[in-house]
């Protein structure tokens, strides 16, 4: 296990370097002068002032050197400053990240609560009403745009139920856990639905695979109760497959959060990213994209490790 862990961690290195190069090049992708990009749209400088600023910021150096300088600063926790607020990018992100993490976790919970039972039922009772409903909901859940679902929720809450939990604004979990959860309920459901469809499909097909396996037939044959066979033999083995997709789904949750946070006015990372994009606050955009990518890579590695721990064939293979 230790060797497997080490191998996974070593593989992380090149990926993270690649991610940082891409995030660095992101600023170069922006059309126009790098200075103009950093200053936003409103500032007018003389050409001489531009040159001075360029030298001050090290932008007259060759690109690889600039990258190394940027990376060095990054490793010391300096990702630049937000143009609009003047705050360090790191602080801006740190203040928003917990909100998005909570939303993503809540959405994942919603997805598991809907997806697992539905997938299980549909695998255990194939070609029945439950199976038909579950299998029809699958593609529907995947095709439902989360920004539409969110909008419909807002409509439902505001117009028909006259209950708008969002008008009160966001409340931190530590301040008032109940108000916090109530606020995040609909955003989490909105974000969780598409993932629930994926969880449902994966659970269903994994369960069907396992239920047809020899060891399940043996378990039945030696007279184990059906509940023991399903619970102990089938479900545990199919959960391994479900765990593996969760890691990938974290990427979906993090990018979906942008839209959902916008609709429900959740003050998370996604909403900040959108504001930063609209205000051409590129340092903040760069920092946010980088943080999300690192989070995504870290989760995928974690899931790989978990997978190896659950299934010896993976870590020894």
């Amino acid at each position, binding site marked *: 296990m230790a060797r497997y862990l080490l191998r996974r961690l070593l593989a992380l290195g090149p990926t993270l370097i690649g991610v940082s190069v891409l995030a660095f090049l992101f600023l170069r992708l922006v059309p126009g002068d790098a200075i103009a990009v950093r200053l936003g749209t409103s500032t007018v400088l003389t050409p001489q002032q531009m040159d001075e600023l360029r030298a001050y910021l090290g932008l007259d150096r060759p690109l690889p050197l600039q990258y190394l300088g940027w990376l060095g600063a990054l490793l010391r926790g300096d990702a630049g400053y937000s143009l609009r607020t003047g705050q360090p990018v790191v602080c801006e992100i740190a203040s928003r990240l917990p909100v998005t993490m909570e939303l993503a976790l809540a959405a994942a919970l919603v997805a598991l609560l809907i997806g697992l039972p539905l997938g299980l039922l549909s695998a255990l009772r194939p070609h029945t009403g439950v199976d038909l409903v579950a299998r029809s909901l699958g593609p529907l859940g995947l095709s439902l745009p989360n920004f539409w679902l969110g909008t419909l929720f807002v409509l439902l809450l505001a117009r028909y139920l006259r209950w708008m939990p969002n008008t009160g604004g966001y409340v931190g979990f530590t301040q008032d856990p109940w108000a916090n959860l109530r606020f995040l309920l609909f955003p989490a459901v909105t974000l969780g639905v598409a993932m629930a469809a994926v969880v449902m499909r994966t659970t269903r097909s994994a369960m069907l695979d396992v239920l047809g396996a020899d060891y399940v037939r043996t378990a039945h044959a030696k007279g184990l109760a059906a509940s023991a066979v399903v619970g102990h033999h089938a479900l545990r083995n199919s959960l391994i497959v479900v765990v593996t997709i969760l890691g990938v789904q974290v990427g979906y949750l993090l*990018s979906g959060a942008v839209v959902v946070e916008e609709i429900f006015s959740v003050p998370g990372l996604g909403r900040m990213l959108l504001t930063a994009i609209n205000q051409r606050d590129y340092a903040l955009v760069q920092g946010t994209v980088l943080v999300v990518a690192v989070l995504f890579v870290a989760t995928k590695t974690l899931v790989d490790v978990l997978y190896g721990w659950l299934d010896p064939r993976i870590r020894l293979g």
Partner: protein
Amino acid sequence: MAGSIRGSAWADVPPDGATTGPRSPRADGAISRVAVALFRNRAALAGLLIVGTFLAVAAAANRLPLANPLRMVPQDRMAGPSWALPLGADAFGRDLLARLVHGARLSLEVAFASVFAALVAGAVLGVVAGYAGGRVDQVLMRIMDVFFSFPAVLLALGIVAALGPHPANVVLAIAIVYTPIFARVVRGPVLALKEREFVEASRALGAPARRIVGRHILPNLASVLVIQTSIALSWAILTEASLSFLGLSAQPPTPSWGAMLNEGRQNIELAPHLAVFPGLAIMLAVLGFNLLGDGLRDALDPRQRS
């Protein structure tokens, strides 16, 4: 890693090599066999019908007897559905049906252009990586891995943010995001195919790599590519709509589904239909390509065929 890769729920990619079953190099009557399988599968047939309808409507958008999607009629502002305005009118008094139809055109143009670019680039990269093997393969796949480190929609969002809000940039962004996915689904089967007897035989006969790839490898990738293309199209439509919703695709007054939905959100209590219909259009289009993709997978993937 089984199941979907990337941060997208829609990028459902089979594991490497999984979709190349034992099959004759030249599958006679393959198209008719697939057609029969599709018609037997009710969900796939529904998908085909939805996709066909959207394509026909989008293609004929300029010839249909519809109002000008940009014409504002002040007295129609936020009108509900009626005989004259089947889906009502938006906050500027523009015919919603006409705007949805023209929006379909934009949405499908962006989706097809980006997926076609990703298909070509991804297939080339995947075939080169898989066929060349060795260091070429390693370098190419490591680069692809970097792209896989970003959640898909977020990567597209970042690219459009940097390049500026425009449908052409959305096409580029979606193409960049989807190229590695095509490369990865193609590479696996290529790795398996190049060890097969008919490829070895061709190589032994002295055929150049160009001929081996063109005659023996590419035709056998058709099913993988067809399935993936359908799924990619559904993802592309959804992503374009998301970006448009966030104001990063076509700019007003151009009719674009996501932007229309976002505009409808402003008046959601007064005129809910302005948010409901564009969302319905997006969902139907995405659903159509998803169902078609699932059906094609069932019809083409030997693993799934019972």
